[in-house]
């Protein structure tokens, strides 16, 4: 691999003339108590082949029956992803031989999936990304094989576990974006409580489809699938490696083959698992043991009612209700706790959404980050922060004083009114008191006053500083500005 490219990549800049095209398939295990098509338990960690029955081991004559809870969870996630829910979806058989696939086929949805045409938005740094969801379909998991040299062992506890496969459009343009997309989907699944999201136990697995092309090209080039990545960091690293590998191939005139690769985290490289020539003809056809899955509108409505307000919807509401910019709304809704906190601040502040967002996003988040605390652990309660903002709005304290109040609240956890009272931090808005201070300052600095009047405008700041100092920072800055201008201009 060329070291220039490597440098460019690690610097997080770009890939020269090349542009990566990435699509991700996420397999999320639905956290139902029983399997997709039978009553066997889905519990993790049981003895090998303990959670099995005639259906999930494909004994002769056994038939699948759809788990309603799995449908409900899938519809819920589909709605959360903004998908259309298909009223009549079809389960198909995907056929191949492998010892941990008992029926000789996996039941999956093929041409008529349950959920389609959704979207996931998230922030990458300060940039808003919007990734389309092509589809989300239901399927069952296979069992697990372990190989021990001369022999192999099969554990079918996982066989038949319900999965939702969420397929993104080829919209992702970089490794960090890929990882952040996966994190976002993970977050939503957990938010809805339909998947425990446990990466170590395989409840959440990513397959990344990667291709690169020259910038400006319209056609997609040959893609490579990296299968079964089970950490967000590895998603980023595997995609990164694969992009560079492919660019390197194009640069050296090597051909990219359509193939399936695996990522080796120890060596930080991908390697070939099977080529397209070895790929199976899955001979998909509708499973005749299962009638098409017909879903009533009322069922979808009932599921919709159980949906919590999702980050994206909440962000839109924040923009409208609290009049804050899109960027602020997306940051504030990244986490449910943060969004809840923000809303409580706005309420306590009496409705000043923008001011609340500034205080939360800058001062509060800075303090939280520095002290490695979560929102829930913040010493400043939402109500105290809101009250402090109200004090500013009422003119009781200035923004400058508020900074002092804020840091006092952070250390002591006291209410802002108490701090203001104890420290005598009330803003001076009495015209005569400020005028008096100004007169004293001008009188004490005749040379500067003369110079200012002689045209040295820059000295204005000097006078503001002096006045603020004389009033211990408590004078209303607006009034100081206004009165000082009047006095200095020689009236």
């Amino acid at each position, binding site marked *: 691999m060329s070291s220039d490219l490597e440098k460019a990549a690690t610097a997080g800049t770009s890939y020269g003339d090349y542009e990566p095209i990435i699509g991700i398939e996420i397999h999320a295990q639905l956290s139902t108590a029983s399997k997709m098509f039978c009553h066997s338990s889905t519990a993790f960690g049981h003895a090998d082949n303990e959670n099995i029955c*005639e259906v999930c*081991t*494909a*004994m*002769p*004559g*056994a*038939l*699948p*029956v*759809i788990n309603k809870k799995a449908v409900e969870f899938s519809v819920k996630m589909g709605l959360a992803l903004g998908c259309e829910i298909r009223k009549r979806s079809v389960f198909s*058989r995907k*056929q191949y*031989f492998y*010892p941990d696939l*008992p*029926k*000789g*086929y996996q039941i999956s949805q093929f041409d008529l999936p349950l959920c389609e045409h959704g979207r996931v938005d998230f922030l990458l740094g300060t940039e808003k990304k919007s990734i389309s969801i092509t589809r989300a379909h239901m399927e069952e998991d296979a069992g697990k094989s372990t190989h021990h040299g*001369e022999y192999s062992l*099969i554990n079918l506890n996982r066989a038949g576990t319900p999965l939702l496969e969420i397929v993104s459009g080829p919209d992702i343009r970089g490794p960090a974006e890929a990882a952040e997309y996966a994190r976002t989907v993970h977050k939503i699944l957990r938010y809805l409580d339909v998947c425990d999201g446990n990466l170590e136990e395989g409840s959440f697995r990513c397959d990344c489809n990667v291709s690169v092309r020259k910038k400006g090209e319209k056609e997609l080039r040959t893609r490579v699938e990296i299968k079964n990545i089970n950490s967000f960091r590895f998603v980023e690293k595997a995609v990164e490696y694969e992009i560079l590998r492919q660019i390197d191939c194009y640069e050296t005139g090597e051909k990219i083959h359509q193939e399936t690769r695996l990522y080796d985290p120890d060596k930080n490289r991908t390697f070939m698992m099977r080529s397209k020539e070895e790929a199976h*003809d899955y*001979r*998909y*056809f509708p*499973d*005749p*043991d*299962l*009638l098409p899955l017909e879903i009533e509108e009322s069922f979808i409505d009932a599921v919709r009612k159980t949906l919590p307000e999702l980050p994206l919807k909440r962000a839109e509401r924040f923009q409208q209700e609290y009049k804050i910019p899109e960027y602020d709304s997306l940051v504030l809704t990244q986490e449910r706790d943060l969004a809840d906190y923000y809303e409580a601040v706005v309420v306590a502040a009496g409705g000043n959404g923008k001011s609340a967002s500034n205080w939360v996003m800058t001062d509060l988040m800075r303090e939280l980050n520095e002290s490695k605390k979560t929102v829930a652990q913040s010493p400043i309660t939402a109500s105290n922060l809101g009250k402090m903002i109200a004090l500013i709005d009422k003119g009781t304290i200035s923004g400058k004083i508020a900074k002092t109040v804020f840091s006092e609240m952070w250390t002591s956890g006291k209410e802002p009114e108490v701090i203001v009272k104890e420290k005598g931090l009330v803003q001076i808005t009495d015209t005569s008191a400020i005028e008096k201070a100004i007169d004293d300052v001008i009188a004490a600095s005749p040379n500067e006053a003369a110079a200012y009047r002689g045209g040295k405008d820059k000295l204005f700041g000097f006078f503001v500083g002096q006045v603020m100092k004389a009033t211990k920072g408590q004078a209303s800055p607006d009034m100081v500005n206004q009165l000082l201008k009047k006095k200095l201009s020689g009236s």
Partner: protein
Amino acid sequence: MDLTNSTCTEIRDAVRGKKVSALEVTRHFADRIQKLDSKVNAFVSTNDRAEDAAKMVDAKIAKGSDPGALAGVPMAIKDLLCTKGLKTTASSKILANFVPPYSATVVNRLEAAGAVTIGKTSLDEFAMGSSNENAATGPVHNPWNLEYVPGGSSGGSAAAIAARMAPGAIGTDTGGSIRQPASFCGLFGIKPTYGRVSRFGIIAFASSLDQAGPMALSTKDCALILETISGSCAHDSTSATIEVPKWSEIITEDVKGLRVGLPKEYFAEKMDSDVERVTREAIAALKDKGAVIVDVSLPLVKHAVPVYYLVATSEASSNLARYDGMRFGHRSTNAAHGDLDDLYSSSRGEGFGSEVKRRIMLGTYALSSGYYDAYYQKASQVRRLIRNEFLNAFQTCDVILSPVCTSPAFKVGERINDPLEMYLNDIFTTSTNLAGLPGMSVPAGYSKAGLPIGVQLMTRHFDETRMFNVSLALENSLQAVKARRPNVI
């Protein structure tokens, strides 16, 4: 009491009325199996717990509790239905030693009604065939003439009743596998509406076509058995939730004004003269009873056989993938060491018979990419049109009557090397499976050689009541047909 020639209903009544014990009945039929089956070869295995089951029925009767609607009736079960603790083989080497830990819903319902599973009957391997010559345990012989086939694939079930080794039996019908052997063996046999009977525990051949149904010596027996095994089942999502009528109590022979449709395409071709004569006699009998004969047209039915063989083999190729030697059944010891693919192909190569392999290959081809649209997809489309055509025909008639098969039973070995000729035998029966309609074979006469010939009745979905009524009318009109007995008895 002449147990040998009694119907299920008669035996049930006698057992409930304490005229005979269930144990005596079971022993009687077990003895007949012992005596006759070496000639007929209908049974794959007998149930060594049959007497215990009979004793339980007798105990219930002694206690005065309800022994069930089939109390003490011995039933022969096609070896395609799983029986808990009792070997179930599908007449295939690949399942030679399979003992299921569960029973098919059909079997559970029969046993709950007091029926006694007397034994498991032979079939064409995995229900693939029309002669019962493709069975791992060798061909079954027709009790009417042992040189002839009993028909297939439920040939063992049919031969068991014809030889009076059981008064009733369960078969399965994917393309005619109940009706054709019923016709060849002089029995009543019904393939119910798809969804009427649970398929749970029935080893799948073609899931969208398979239905289990009764074979017996009378219409009423079929009605009694079918009402026992029908109804929705939590283990089969294709089973219908529609109500099951008490056929055994409600059916009548009243067919006055009933419109009997004759599909002109079925009668257009040159037909076997015996089959044609018997069919005409059945039509005349119904006319005598006041039925109105009308012509109907089913032009697409000529495509039923190719469509059937594409749909059925496609599904079969998939359903039979689980027989891989991994978890149950035959595992080859001849595979190259450490070669997984070789283990699969050796196990399957040794375990499956040639007809099963032929169909797996055909189905695999029809589903493979590049051919799916032209074969499986197209067949599914034509299948829908055939269904519509039937629904349309039922606008002008209530029942459709046709031959069951193109000919009476043929000799063992006569068609074994001509699979295509064998497939064409199913021309009158496959369309009902494709359309999901109920179909029934009713004994209607004999060939000049003395072999039974049946006629087929078809009705609308879930309209079995009407079919039973017509069957009963024919049964009562054709008493002479019923009076004859197979040679082997």
